[in-house]
């Protein structure tokens, strides 16, 4: 069966990937919908709602992923640029900015995002890698300083820089992965993104389950009451196993796929952990908490692991292949 698939054309293989992906999602969705028909008590209803929300987010994610692939480089870049825009909007809402930051924020939203994604679309990966850490890193504080407000200058700038780094720089590596080309592995970037998403989700889920079940001493009680070293290690191992099992969709052999998956899974889990600290700091449970002022969809929550895993994954893959 697998050997037969190898002979298929690349686009047929990718199309099959999406058929399987949406098939699984709809099957799970049907099961969840059936479960919601039963009589439920209060706690079960809450769990049910959370499950449905997660599923909806997954479906939206899968659709974005499909649109990104189906519409080629331009579409992929645009779809992820829009995601970056929405994520950064959510981030800035919760970071207390002052009037003096107005120009820097305009620069971030209306210059940095378009340029960064233009670089992705043009496959200018060298400049894409350094544009934000080098050039924007200087430009933002300069614009801020010109606004003439010295109050909490470092803090405000650090927050904006950090938001750009996570929401724009990190996320822009997902379409970059779609557009990355290797010899003998042309047009299969979608598989790499799929690989990245699956292994980081696997790491995340196993880590959460293990941390909760094992009841080990949490590493940082005030940030996450469950997150333990054992849970993290198990998450990374799970990612490696899933990665090794999926090696046939990557350009590498099983051993290397396992290493790549472990790296990606570990980064995603740690990224989620860092985001949790950030949320604690901002005083919200989800970014889109109804009771907070944003009332947003909680997008940042969903993309956070990807934001942290994608750059590390991208660069490790790229270095390895050079």
């Amino acid at each position, binding site marked *: 069966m697998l050997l037969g698939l190898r002979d298929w054309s690349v686009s047929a293989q990718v199309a099959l990937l999406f058929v399987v992906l949406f098939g699984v999602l709809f099957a799970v969705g049907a099961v969840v919908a059936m479960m919601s028909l039963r009589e439920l008590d209060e706690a079960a209803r809450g769990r049910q709602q959370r499950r449905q929300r997660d599923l909806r987010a997954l479906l939206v994610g899968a659709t974005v992923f499909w649109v990104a692939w189906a519409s080629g480089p331009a579409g992929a870049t645009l779809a992820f640029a829009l995601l970056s825009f929405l994520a950064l909007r959510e981030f800035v*809402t919760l970071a207390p900015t002052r009037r003096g930051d*107005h120009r820097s924020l*305009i620069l971030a939203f209306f210059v940095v995002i378009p340029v960064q994604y233009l670089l992705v679309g043009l496959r200018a990966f060298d400049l894409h890698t350094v544009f934000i850490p080098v050039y924007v890193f200087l430009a933002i504080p300069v614009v801020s300083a010109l606004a003439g407000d010295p109050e909490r200058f470092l803090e405000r700038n650090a927050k904006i820089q950090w938001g750009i780094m996570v929401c724009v720089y990190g996320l822009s590596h997902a379409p970059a992965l779609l557009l990355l080309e290797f010899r003998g592995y042309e047009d299969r970037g979608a598989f790499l993104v799929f690989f990245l998403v699956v292994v980081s989700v696997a790491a995340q889920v196993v880590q959460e389950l293990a941390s909760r079940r094992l009841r080990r001493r949490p590493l940082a009680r005030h940030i996450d009451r469950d997150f333990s070293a054992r849970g993290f290690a198990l998450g990374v191992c799970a990612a490696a196993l899933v990665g090794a099992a999926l090696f046939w969709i990557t350009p590498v052999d099983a051993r290397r796929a396992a290493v790549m998956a472990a790296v990606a899974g570990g980064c995603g889990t740690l990224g989620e952990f860092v985001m949790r600290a950030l949320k604690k700091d901002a005083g919200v449970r989800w970014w889109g908490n109804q009771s907070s002022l*944003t*009332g947003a969809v909680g997008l940042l929550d969903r993309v956070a692991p990807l934001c942290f895993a994608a750059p590390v994954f991208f660069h490790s893959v790229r270095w390895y292949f050079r």
Partner: protein
Amino acid sequence: MSTADAMGVLLAFVARLITGAQGHWKGCAPQAEQRIYFANHQSHLDWVLIWAALPRELRASTRPIAARDYWTKTAFKRWLTSAVFNAVYVTRLRSDDQDPLGPLAEALEHGDSLVIFPEGTRSHRDEPQPFKSGLFHLAEKFAQVPLVPAWIDNVQRVMPKGEVVPVPILCTVTFGAPIRLDAGEDKRAFLERARAAVLALRPALR
């Protein structure tokens, strides 16, 4: 679809893209009944935000109030306020023979809903300024129309005074429970109560 309708759809889309324009209906549901919405006023965007937060069916019959001297100065401003938003024009300069609330009363008799900012001007403080008496006179004259308080949050960060380009930051519009003028309630007490109703909708978590 006319150009004005298309412009309306475009403006609502942009407002949602930039601010989210989330409408939270806490005290009443968005219904197609005649209402007077009154809200805090911090920015030029306030009206667009409330308008975008309303369901599309209600937008056509919900009208803002625009100062005639400013909003009819150029052809574009006139088109924007009359064709797109169907604004009620009021004259800021008071003449003796004319009731300043006349055009508003006319619109209400016609069955339209209104959005008013009773502070009269944009405030840049945290709390709204004391309300002007126009709201009281409307409540007196149109006792059957529910007065819906609304709090617009965060919009002052989107476009601070003196800036032209808005920054994308999420904003919410919270609509509260309707209030009415009580029998025998005097002007000061009513305006104070109306202001408190708006202020009570401010989200606690910042």
